[in-house]
């Protein structure tokens, strides 16, 4: 079955430190991978995507993610975290000719001053 997993419910980092939010996927065929961020009482905002091409993709607000086919992962990273990065982060996947998107369970990122 097609799925996406976020193994950590919560990630805590200190401001200025690098952050990583993990995502792994299981799909048949080529995956299209996405990261979204959700602030309290808001909708989901698109951060970045991997469709094809370079495995390292850069997105909004200084975030980047690396597609790793052998490890079936698409971890979200940022070199230096800000308190304002504190939010709920969702990894999502689409596959093949399917136009639907499925989301991971979400990871709550807390950046402490």
């Amino acid at each position: 079955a097609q799925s996406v997993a976020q193994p950590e419910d919560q990630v805590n980092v200190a401001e200025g430190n690098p952050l990583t939010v993990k995502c792994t996927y299981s799909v048949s065929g080529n995956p299209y991978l996405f990261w979204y961020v959700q602030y309290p009482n808001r909708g989901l905002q698109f951060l970045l995507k991997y469709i094809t091409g370079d495995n390292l993709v850069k997105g909004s607000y200084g975030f980047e993610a690396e597609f790793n086919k052998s490890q079936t992962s698409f971890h979200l990273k940022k070199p230096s975290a800000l308190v304002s990065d504190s939010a709920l982060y969702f990894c999502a996947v689409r596959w093949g000719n399917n136009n639907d998107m499925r989301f991971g369970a979400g990871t709550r990122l807390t950046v402490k001053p």
Partner: protein
Amino acid sequence: EPEVTQTPSHQVTQMGQEVILRCVPISNHLYFYWYRQILGQKVEFLVSFYNNEISEKSEIFDDQFSVERPDGSNFTLKIRSTKLEDSAMYFCATYRDTGELFFGEGSRLTVL
């Protein structure tokens, strides 16, 4: 920047009542979706809609749910007889061909 607009932002209803949630997609987008999120947790797929018909639906999308584009612009989600467990945030999303979905700000449904 074009955006997906949802109304109402919050609706409170009694159990058993019908509810209609409305979405105005980004113009020239062709695919429309409804997702549900309970208490800030997982975002759950409900239904996808393309070319005026349902493309795919989840097991959550049972007979009490329906979708339509009544006037070619709005995209609505109807819940015929609401249950307590329908209380959630409902998000509309649209897509053209760039890969990502664009989400509205959501409609919060509270069933009493």
